[in-house]
């Protein structure tokens, strides 16, 4: 069965410092992986997706993620945090049933301190 585990429930960084949000996945096949962001009282927005093309995926707002099959990881990074990055981040894997169902990690809350 597909699953994702977000290794940190809460991450706190200072503005201007790097961001690292960690995600490990479990999949029998080459997975489709996503990172979504949810700002307070808002819906979810796609940051980036991996679909077996380049292993380094660039997303919106300066975020990127690297797919590492040997480590079954898909960590999200950003070189320099901005106050507006404070939000909830979800690592997501696509279900294998060809129905588009998504399996979510538990979420990581990113706090950005001035």
């Amino acid at each position, binding site marked *: 069965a597909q699953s994702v585990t977000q290794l940190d*429930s809460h991450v706190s960084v200072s503005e201007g410092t790097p961001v690292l949000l960690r995600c490990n996945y479990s999949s029998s096949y080459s997975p*489709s992986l*996503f990172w*979504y962001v949810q700002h307070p*009282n*808002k*819906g*979810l*927005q*796609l940051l980036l*997706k991996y*679909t077996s093309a380049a292993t380094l995926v660039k997303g919106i707002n300066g975020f990127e993620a690297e797919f590492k099959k040997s480590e079954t990881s898909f960590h999200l990074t950003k070189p320099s945090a901005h106050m507006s990055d404070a939000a909830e981040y*979800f690592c997501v894997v*696509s279900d294998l049933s*060809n*129905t*588009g*169902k*998504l399996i*979510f*990690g*538990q*979420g990581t809350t990113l706090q950005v301190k001035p």
Partner: protein
Amino acid sequence: NAGVTQTPKFRILKIGQSMTLQCTQDMNHNYMYWYRQDPGMGLKLIYYSVGAGITDKGEVPNGYNVSRSTTEDFPLRLELAAPSQTSVYFCASSYRAENTEAFFGQGTRLTVV
């Protein structure tokens, strides 16, 4: 371009009451989904639909029902509200099943008292 629209945004229900959460999308997507979000739990799939007239259960369907009479609309029905259904509900749609993003509505925050 409205995308996925959910109504209402907030609702308080009493135990045993019923209500329908509305979801409509204007992107002509065949695939639609209902998720619920509980604190610290990520999102869990309640029901999904792969096209008009076709629905199926997700991971947590108990206490809910859906219908899909048109491509645009995918309402979620709560028949006998229970405190365990206090949650934030998200509707989503996508245009194909694989390797594609889902578009989410703004959510409905439901409290059952």
